């Protein structure tokens, strides 16, 4: 079940009604059952995996709290982290590792019968819920949070359906207290939740899916495209992935809001950033802060020598690349971001200038870099990414491509709405708008959603991670 499906349009109001019909003490079970049903609708077999992960970290949390010995605590933490990363490695990286082992052995031995790849299906959302459960166990280990004794609440923390498959990656201390709090049926929650769901669907179905049509056609034949098409496709992809992922997150936040839960913000107009460092403060915020808290700080952060600090930055970004997928393109993408962040830090490029012109130039350069690096992210493999840049250089002409005005107009409309909501989210921004104007905005968004949504509906891009 995906957010942009009829099933979800029926499922969400049903869960909403059931949630408020029952008394508070039963609501956790309603949400838990709904969340498991939501996950089972993808692939029933993988429910075992999520249950296993839940049991391991629930047990690890309780054991950590009851254990005083440092050595034992470290052992428990290691076992939990290894189990979580083990699942992740097997399902996500095993074939990638096998492929590379084959290549190395072939290079060393000359002739070699490669080991065949295994037929492994990636469980949807595994990268997200694994990181979420790991953050809990690490926080309990560091005594930043208390272990949860109520299994139902802990299980719900792992699988809360709005954010189960693609985040935001929530911390235990943010999500569980809200789930435990008695929720009253408040009009503002319905109104804000509904607005966010509408805006999220607009971003995904109207903007991302329409831009994706041209992007797919260009990336499907990179060698045959002229430079103008390649440039437009790159810019379109920047907005496609933003609207796709931001759209998903916004629907997730809106859905959770209906149950009186405020999920974490994941995007803050990242394309307005004046540096790559700033971009990462505003893009996929919950993942960035996860890496900051659980990798960057433990590696010393900016406290040690410059070399140590540089290694920490490189590690974070390369792990971030690997997190996105088992492909060299993601690793290169993460590595290049790391190098640019290091450059910015060493040259103080990331400091905000008061001069408007300089700020504009920095913004332009940042957008250019982010867009160029997305090429690695979007390409199916390194050869395709290299081919993209080669074609860009070799097919340099500005002949008009076969493209209607519609995606440009829709993109323009989105940019206006994104700018208008840069300080507060869409729902809160609408609070300050006169009701007639608000009605007009609803009308336009719903009209576009009904009539201009992409017809080649694709799953959310981040589901593959």
């Amino acid at each position, binding site marked *: 079940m995906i957010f942009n499906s009829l099933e979800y349009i029926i499922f969400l109001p049903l869960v909403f009604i059931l949630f408020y019909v029952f008394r508070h003490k039963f609501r956790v079970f309603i949400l838990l059952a709904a969340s498991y049903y939501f996950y089972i609708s993808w692939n029933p077999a993988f429910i075992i995996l999520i249950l296993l992960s839940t049991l391991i970290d629930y047990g690890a949390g309780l054991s950590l709290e009851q254990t005083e010995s440092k050595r034992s605590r470290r052992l428990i933490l290691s076992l939990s982290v290894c189990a979580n990363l083990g699942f992740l490695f097997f399902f996500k990286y095993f074939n990638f590792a096998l492929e590379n082992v084959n290549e190395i052995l072939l290079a060393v031995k000359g002739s070699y019968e490669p080991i065949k790849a295994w037929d492994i299906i990636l469980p949807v959302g595994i990268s997200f819920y694994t990181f979420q459960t790991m953050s809990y166990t690490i926080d309990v280990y560091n005594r930043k949070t208390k272990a949860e004794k109520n299994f139902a609440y802990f299980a719900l923390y792992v699988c809360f359906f709005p954010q189960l498959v693609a985040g935001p990656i929530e911390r235990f201390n943010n999500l569980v207290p809200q789930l435990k709090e008695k929720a009253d049926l408040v009009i503002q929650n319905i109104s804000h939740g509904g607005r966010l769901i509408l805006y999220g669907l607009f971003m995904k179905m109207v903007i991302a899916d329409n831009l994706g049509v041209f992007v797919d056609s260009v990336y499907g034949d990179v060698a045959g495209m002229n430079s103008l098409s390649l440039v437009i496709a790159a810019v379109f992809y920047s907005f496609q992935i933003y609207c796709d992922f931001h759209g998903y997150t916004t629907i997730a936040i809106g859905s959770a809001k209906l149950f009186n839960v405020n999920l974490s913000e994941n995007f803050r107009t990242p394309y307005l950033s004046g540096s790559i460092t700033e971009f990462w403060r505003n893009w996929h915020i919950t993942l960035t802060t996860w890496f900051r808290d659980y990798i960057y700080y433990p590696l010393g952060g900016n406290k040690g020598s410059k070399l140590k600090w540089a290694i920490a930055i490189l590690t974070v970004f390369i792990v971030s690349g690997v997190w996105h997928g088992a492909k060299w393109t993601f690793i290169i993408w993460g590595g290049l971001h790391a190098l640019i962040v290091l450059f910015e830090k060493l040259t103080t490029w990331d400091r905000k200038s008061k001069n408007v012109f300089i700020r504009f130039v920095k913004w332009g350069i940042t957008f250019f870099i982010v867009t160029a690096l997305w090429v690695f992210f979007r390409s199916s493999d390194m050869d395709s990414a290299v081919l993209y840049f080669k074609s860009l250089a070799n097919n340099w002409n500005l002949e008009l491509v076969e493209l209607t005005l519609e995606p440009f107009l829709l993109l323009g409309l989105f940019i206006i709405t994104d700018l208008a909501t840069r300080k507060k989210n869409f729902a809160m921004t609408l609070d300050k708008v006169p009701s007639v104007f608000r009605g007009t905005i609803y009308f336009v968004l719903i009209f576009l*959603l*009904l*009539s201009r*949504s992409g017809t080649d509906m694709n799953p959310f891009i981040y589901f593959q991670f």
Partner: protein
Amino acid sequence: MNVVKYIAIRLVLGVVFLFVMNQLYLFTFWKGDINQHGDTLENLWVVDTSADAIYFGESSNFHVDEADTMKHRISYALDTLVPNLSIATVDNAGLHAGSYLSLIKNIPDEMNLKFIVVTLNYRSFAANWRYAAFENYLAKSELMMEPSIPILNRFLVSLKLYDYKTEKEREDQMKTAWKNEKFTIPDFEYNNVVEWDSAMAWQTWLNVNSNLNEENLPLASHYIKNFAFSIDTLNNERIEDLNSIVNIGSEKGYKVIFNLLGENTEEAEKLVGKELIYLMEKNRSLLVNYYTSRGVIVVDNFYEIPDSCFVDRSWPTEHYNYQGKRIVAENIKKAIEKNELHN
């Protein structure tokens, strides 16, 4: 109570919004969307509403042989053969009963039709066509053409709420049907497409059938995949759609003519054998009897088209040269006259 009132007001406003949006959609994007996702409907829009009949066809109607001097459609030939009737044409490649049903639902109420001619393509009952990749487009078209609220149709299309399947899923469906949809031929060892086709593929038949050689073996295989089946009137979706067309005809008060196209039985027998003809005949007679008993005029061209009239020689189709098209048109004309629809 406040919450209930809040939701109720919004639901009412939603209905009003929907009505206005639908009107706006019809005025702005609808025609463009139909052009993109359901272009066959455009053919119906240009039909003269004073026409006496509509001929619904697929590529057999408009495909022309390069060598032909006359490059007219079957429907055009028919129109000229019955000068006192005006017969309009609605056609497009790959259409089948489901597509015709969607179009027929959209026939303008102001039309005073005497009859409709619906092309009945034998191959369209086979798994090869029912589960073809092209079905995605046809299913999407059918949803776009559904006479309900156009803006909702468009939204349902964007949610892929039609019979959408990936190419792999379609291929799997087809292979499953070839294996599971059994048929019985007396004194014949194969009872499904997979077994029969495999035997062909292993070239064992080259020794059995002197008409087969390595060159025409793939064509023989196509004949099996396209023609070897047994129509199940309870589960074949084409039957369900054709039955709905018959019902609409009775409701609206016009006669329904099913134009069963001719197949190249000569070549089928030569390449595959009499067993295939046995199956084809069984299906043909089933279709003719089934629909005749339901008050439909069935024009049976099944054995009427000689081998020389078939244009495509590497794939079994119903693309005829003009002589073949003319035979079909004349048979329809005879049926019209026999049933006194021409007055």
